[in-house]
């Protein structure tokens, strides 16, 4: 039986090769179907990867805690309006929430920065040293400030790439240079590696970091020492985020002495929330792609069925001869199924090739990132084989049920 299958497939190939134009045109539907699946999934995966990279650029496993809204006589102000979070909140969270890896804090204000005869207005952030690791910032030049510099309220600054581009001439190393922030001189000790746009479209590199203590005592001022603009925390693993959020809420409510009927005076956000929205968009796109691809596979399958019906009619005499020399129904059935599946699988293979080319062309022409997905290739190829099988059954069965005498007499 083994040799029967090998020879049947061989015969199918030879017959299809003889009618090259017809076979080629028949497979076009499958080629388009499979090709578009591969290309579109590649584009989709590329987009998803880009979004994930963008979310990761905010710092993975990051938890952001913002001060709550002020509520005066039923009128609710905007989030961050009240000063309810402090450095001590952060230190206490670090002690009481075991899943937290690091906690940090920051406060910010937009200030004028002067270097030589250049000036820019940039958000200046007073931060704890831990902030840099929570947000995954790295350096292209120089390095972070130390706990010691934090304690001594040193006048040192870290510059984002956009600020460097605006203040310095290309090629000039800002490290060691002096700038003035609201007329206070600061020494630049590090340049941050660029992160690009945030998922919300902000330029994350248009930023300056200075030690938190320096900021509250020398530059930004404060309502009371230790009040912060926002708390940051990170967990070791993303799975720990939900538990950490619950613990943080409990600890902070306890520290702020909130009664059970009072609302939170803070807001907790995680990267998961931001990523979800983006992935939802990706899923809609994927569903659309799959419906387009299924339609072309369906059309391709009908094409195969059509050409096979023609082929069965054309080769009625041949079927009769095969039956006369001893072919059983299943032999005829398998022969035509093999032809249908050969057509669809060759179409599938060509489709995979065109899909990969299409994805790469998209990257070159449109500049979109694409990732060739091995799973998509396997699924699309198996789908094309299934299309051949399903749409081959009717014509093959028609051939197998022919009466040998009628088939032999057919002109």
């Amino acid at each position, binding site marked *: *039986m083994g*040799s*029967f299958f090998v*020879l049947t497939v061989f015969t199918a190939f030879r017959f299809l090769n*003889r009618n090259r134009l017809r076979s080629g045109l028949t497979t076009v539907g499958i080629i388009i179907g499979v090709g578009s699946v591969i290309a579109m999934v590649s584009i989709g995966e590329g987009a998803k990867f880009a979004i994930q990279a963008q979310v990761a650029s905010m710092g993975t496993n990051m938890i952001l805690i913002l001060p709550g809204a002020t509520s005066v006589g039923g009128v609710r102000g905007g989030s961050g309006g009240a000063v309810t979070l402090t450095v001590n909140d952060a230190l206490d969270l670090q002690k009481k929430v075991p899943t937290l890896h690091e906690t940090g804090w920051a406060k910010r204000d937009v200030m004028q920065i002067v270097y030589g005869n250049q000036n820019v207005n940039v958000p200046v952030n007073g931060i704890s040293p831990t902030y840099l690791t929570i947000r995954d910032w790295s350096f292209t030049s120089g390095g972070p400030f130390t706990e010691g510099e934090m304690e001594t309220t040193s006048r040192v600054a870290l510059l984002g790439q956009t600020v460097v581009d605006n203040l310095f001439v290309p090629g000039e190393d800002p490290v060691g240079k002096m700038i003035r922030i609201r007329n206070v001189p600061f020494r630049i000790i590090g340049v941050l590696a660029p992160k690009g746009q945030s998922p919300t479209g902000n330029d994350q590199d248009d930023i300056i970091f200075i030690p938190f203590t320096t900021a509250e005592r020398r530059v930004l001022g404060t309502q009371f020492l230790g009040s912060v603009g926002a708390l940051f925390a990170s967990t070791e693993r993303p799975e720990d985020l939900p538990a950490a959020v619950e613990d943080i809420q409990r600890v902070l409510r306890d520290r702020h002495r909130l009664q059970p009927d009072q609302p939170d005076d803070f807001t907790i956000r995680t990267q998961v929330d931001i990523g979800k929205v983006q992935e939802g968009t990706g899923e809609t796109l994927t569903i659309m792609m799959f419906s387009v691809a299924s339609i072309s596979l369906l059309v391709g399958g009908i094409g195969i069925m059509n050409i096979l019906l023609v082929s069965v009619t054309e080769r009625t*005499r*041949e079927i*009769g*001869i*095969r*039956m*006369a*020399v*001893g*072919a*059983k*129904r*299943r*032999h005829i059935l398998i022969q035509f199924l093999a032809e249908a599946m050969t057509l669809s699988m060759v179409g599938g293979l060509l489709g995979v090739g065109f899909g990969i080319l299409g994805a790469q062309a998209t990257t070159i022409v449109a500049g979109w990132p694409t990732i060739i997905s091995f799973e998509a290739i396997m699924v699309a190829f198996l789908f094309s084989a299934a299309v051949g099988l399903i749409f081959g059954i009717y014509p093959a069965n028609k051939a197998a049920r022919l009466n*040998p*005498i009628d088939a*032999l007499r057919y002109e």
Partner: protein
Amino acid sequence: MTMSHLIACNNLSKTYRLGDIDVEALRGINLAIQPGEFIAIMGSSGSGKSTLMNILGCLDVPTAGSYCLNGRDIAHAEPDELAEIRSRTIGFVFQNFSLIPKTSALENVQLPLFYQGLSLREQRSRAQSALARVGLANREHHYPTQLSGGQQQRVAIARALVSAPSLLLADEPTGNLDTQSSQEIMDIFQSLNHTDGLTILVVTHEIDIAAYASRQIQMRDGCILSDQTSIGMGMRVS
């Protein structure tokens, strides 16, 4: 009728339905054939000779009556059982050669063995000796269109022989051939009958073709008109 009969038909009849009319192609045929006979079935078109051959060749089943082949009643066999019998027991030669187009002579001859599920190697070697038997050893890789009518019919004979059948059925085997080729074909049949003891049944309407056979059966209107054994040719009864 004893078990020694290769073929034993009893009251065999076949009725076709053409539109609203029933056509009685065979009306109660009684026929016994011994192994090793060379028989010619003659008759004008519409006499039922092709219908008889189709039933004897297991391409069709009778409407009524019994048909025993090798002692087995197969009047009511299923299509796949009939295919199995055709594959092992019967070889066909048709008027229009009936080779598969664009397929080499060797592969055409291999076809019955392919459906028997033999290994490619065995298919090859048996097909080669069958082609050699009909004098076409040097035409193995020719396509049907590259062969003359006589050669194509010899390929068809090789294909009928390759599965070592006990019965060879030929429907007007020389109908499309010139005298010279017809003679060659009939010589091969005669040689197969005499040398190998193969039972051969030829359907023809030509008297000089029928003369090669040792027994002539005349049909008319679905009945056997006459059944005579040629004097001098001799019957080979086992």
